C-alpha cells in the first residue's frame, strides 16, 4: 500500500480524499494556491506545499509544479479528485514517467474516452447502444444536412472535445442547421481549441442516468448501480440521486452490463462512470465515459455501503476487487445537493466572501462533505462548490424528508448560497413524483415561485432585529462585514478568470 498520497485538488473533494488517506493510515500531502493558504484541505493535510498564483494554470493545473511537490514530499501516488487534472491524459503520462502512481485509469484509457467521436467508434465495435448519428467529426455542411435528413429532426450538434454544454446546439429544422453548425464549431474552437463537431438525433426530454463502474488491474470489472442526474441547470448537474426512480433491477442489470462492456473495451481501470441518455420509452443510449471520480459519488456509496475512494486507492495499489458483481446490493435511496456560493435571487451569480456563521446539519441519514468552515473567506477563483449535503433514507420519500429537514438546519451566514433552491426542488410536486428530465429544472425556475410572505415570521424578524441591536456588539459577528465587503470590491479581474472552469465539473 502507498505510504503517502498527494492530492492534486482543493475544496471538499481534497478534504474527502484526505479523510480516506487518514482512514487507511496513509499520509496526505496538500497543494495550495496563494488564495487557498487557509483552505480546509491545507488544515487537514499532514503536509502542505504552496504551488503559486490563484489562476489554476499557475497552480492546480500546473503539471511540473505538482510533480515537483510529489518528488519533494516523497509521495508515491497522486489522487487528482475531479476537475483540474483528473481527466488529463498528459498528466497521467507524466505521473507514470515520474514513477508516481496516478490514482485513476491509464493515459491510454483516458485518451480512448477523451474524444467523444473516438469513444463512439470504439464503443460501436463493442456493441454499445448509441443515439443515431455520426461517430466522426462532420466534414462539411452537406454531410451534416444529409445525416440530419436520415436520422430525422430535431438533431443535436456536439463538440467532440466537449463538456458542460459548450459547443452544443439543438437544431429543430433544416433551415437552422447551417448557422447552428457554424456557432457550434466556433464555440468548440474557443472553448476547447478543437472545432470538431458531430451530429446526433436529439432525444426529447431525456433523462441523464449514469452507471458507476469499478475495474481492478487484473481484469475484473463491476457496476455499482446508477445515478439519476437529470436535474441540471444550463447543463450543470445540481442534484443527483441513486437509485434512479425509473430504473428497475432488470434495466439496472442491462445498463450495468453495457457499462462494463464500455469499460472493458477501453481496458479501463479504477473508478469510472458511463453516462447514458434515456428516452421516454426507457431506451438508453451511451453518451460518454467520465474517467474519474464524480462529484456525486456519495449517493452510490450510501446505497451500496462501499467507499469508492478507499477502493480507488486499493485498486491503484494493485489489489484485486474485494467482491464480485453478485455481492453488490442496493439498499435505500440517497440524494445529493451541491451547495454553491451563489445567489439564487440574482441569476446564480457567484457570491464569495467571509463565512461569518456556519450552522451545519447532522443527525440520522445525513452526510456532509464540506470544504468550508466558519471564518473562512470563500475565494472567487474556483468553482464555488462549498459542500455537498447528502440525504439517505429507507426510501425516496424519507431521503427527501430528511434532506429537507437538514437543509432547514443548514445556515451559511455572510455569503449567499443556493440552499433555498434545494428547498424549492425537494418541495416541488413534480420532483416528488419523480417526473424528471434534463429540462425539469429550467422549467421549474421559469415558473414564478409564489413566495407567500409570512407575516408572523416577519414580526419575529422585526423583534429579533431589534433584540440584536439592543444586545449590542457581543450579539453579532457581522460588524466586520462592512470591511469585508470593501475588500471584495478591490478584487481585481484575475479573480474572475477561473470561474468558467466550474462548467467543466459535472
Amino acid at each position, binding site marked *: 500500500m502507498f505510504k503517502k498520497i498527494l492530492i492534486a485538488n482543493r475544496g471538499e473533494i481534497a478534504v474527502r480524499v484526505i479523510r480516506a488517506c487518514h482512514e487507511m493510515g496513509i499520509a496526505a500531502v496538500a497543494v495550495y494556491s496563494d488564495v487557498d493558504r487557509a483552505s480546509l484541505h491545507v488544515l487537514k493535510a499532514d503536509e502542505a506545499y504552496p504551488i503559486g498564483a490563484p489562476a489554476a494554470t499557475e497552480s492546480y493545473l500546473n503539471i511540473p509544479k505538482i510533480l515537483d511537490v510529489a518528488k519533494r514530499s516523497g509521495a508515491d501516488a497522486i489522487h487528482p479528485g475531479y476537475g483540474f487534472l483528473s481527466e488529463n491524459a498528459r498528466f497521467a503520462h507524466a505521473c507514470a514517467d515520474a514513477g508516481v502512481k496516478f490514482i485513476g485509469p491509464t493515459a491510454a484509457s483516458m485518451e480512448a474516452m477523451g474524444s467523444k467521436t473516438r469513444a463512439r467508434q470504439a464503443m460501436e465495435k463493442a456493441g454499445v447502444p448509441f443515439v443515431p448519428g455520426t461517430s466522426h467529426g462532420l466534414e462539411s455542411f452537406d454531410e451534416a444536412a444529409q445525416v440530419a435528413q436520415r436520422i430525422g429532426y430535431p438533431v443535436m450538434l456536439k463538440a467532440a472535445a466537449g463538456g458542460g454544454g459548450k459547443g452544443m446546439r439543438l437544431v429543430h429544422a433544416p433551415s437552422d442547421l447551417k448557422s447552428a453548425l457554424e456557432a457550434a464549431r466556433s464555440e468548440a474552437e474557443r472553448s476547447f481549441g478543437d472545432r470538431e463537431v458531430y451530429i446526433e438525433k436529439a432525444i426529447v426530454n431525456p433523462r441523464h442516468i449514469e452507471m458507476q463502474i469499478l475495474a481492478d488491474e487484473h481484469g475484473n470489472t463491476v457496476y455499482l448501480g446508477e445515478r439519476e442526474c437529470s436535474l441540471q441547470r444550463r447543463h450543470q448537474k445540481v442534484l443527483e440521486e441513486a437509485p434512479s426512480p425509473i430504473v428497475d433491477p432488470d434495466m439496472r442489470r442491462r445498463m450495468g452490463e453495457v457499462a462494463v462492456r464500455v469499460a472493458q473495451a477501453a481496458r479501463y481501470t479504477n473508478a469510472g462512470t458511463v453516462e447514458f441518455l434515456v428516452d421516454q420509452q426507457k431506451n438508453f443510449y451511451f453518451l460518454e465515459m467520465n474517467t474519474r471520480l464524480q462529484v456525486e459519488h456519495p449517493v452510490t456509496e450510501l446505497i451500496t455501503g462501499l467507499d469508492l475512494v478507499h477502493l480507488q486507492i486499493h485498486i491503484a495499489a494493485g489489489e484485486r476487487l474485494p467482491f464480485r458483481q453478485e455481492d453488490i446490493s442496493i439498499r435505500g435511496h440517497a440524494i445529493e445537493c451541491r451547495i454553491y456560493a451563489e445567489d439564487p435571487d440574482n441569476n446564480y451569480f457567484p457570491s464569495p466572501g467571509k463565512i461569518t456563521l456556519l450552522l451545519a446539519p447532522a443527525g440520522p441519514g445525513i452526510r456532509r462533505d464540506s470544504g468550508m468552515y466558519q471564518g473562512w473567506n470563500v475565494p472567487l477563483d474556483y468553482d464555488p462548490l462549498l459542500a455537498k449535503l447528502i440525504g439517505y433514507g429507507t426510501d425516496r420519500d424519507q431521503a427527501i424528508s430528511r434532506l429537507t429537514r437538514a*437543509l432547514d438546519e443548514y445556515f451559511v451566514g455572510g455569503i449567499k448560497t443556493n440552499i433555498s433552491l434545494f428547498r424549492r426542488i425537494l418541495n416541488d410536486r413534480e420532483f416528488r413524483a419523480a417526473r424528471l428530465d434534463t429540462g425539469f429544472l429550467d422549467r421549474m425556475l421559469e415558473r414564478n415561485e409564489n413566495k407567500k410572505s409570512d407575516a408572523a415570521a416577519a414580526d419575529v424578524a422585526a423583534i429579533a432585529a431589534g*433584540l*440584536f441591536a439592543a444586545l449590542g456588539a457581543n450579539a453579532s459577528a*457581522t460588524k466586520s462585514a462592512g470591511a469585508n465587503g470593501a475588500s471584495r470590491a478591490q478584487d481585481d479581474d484575475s479573480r474572475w478568470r477561473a470561474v468558467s472552469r466550474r462548467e467543466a465539473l459535472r
Partner: protein
Amino acid sequence: MIYDVTIDGKNHRLDLNHADGRWSCLLDGRPLQIDAVLARPDVLSLRIGDMSYEVKSECVAGDLHIWVGSARFAAEVRDPRSLRSRARAADDHGPRKITAAMPGKVVRVLVNEGEEVEAGTGIAVVEAMKMQNEIKSPKKGIVQKIPVKEGVAVNAGDVLAVVE
C-alpha cells in the same frame, strides 16, 4: 428602547425594554410576551408566547438579513435617538451612490435619469464571465444620475447610478 425596524420594506415601530431579566415588547403598539437568549453570536433563541424560533443574523455586502428558521428577511434597524443612526437615516434620505461590486461590463441600463424607483428596482445589469448580475436600488427615490452606458466596462466600485 425604541427602534424603527424595516423588514422586507415594511416599517415597524418596536419598543423593547429589559428589566429584572425579562424583556417587554411592543410591536407597532401590540404588546407581545417575549423571552430571548443569545445562543451564540448571531443566533438568537426567541420565544414569543410559547412559540420557539431560532433566529440568525448576517450581513452580506452591507445588507443586514434576519433569518427566521429558513425564511430570510432584509432588515434595517434605526434607533431614532442615536446619533449614528440619525446620520445613517440622513444618508438614507440623501443621495445614494450605487456602485459595481465586481468588475464587468454594463450590458443593460434599466432606468432613466429622473425616473422614480422603489427599493429593489433593478438599475443596471453587469455581466462578468457570462453571468449577469442585476444591480438594484437600495432605496426608494429618484434616479439623479447614470454615469455609465450600455456596453462600457466598469471596475469594482465604479458608480453606476445615484438615487436620491
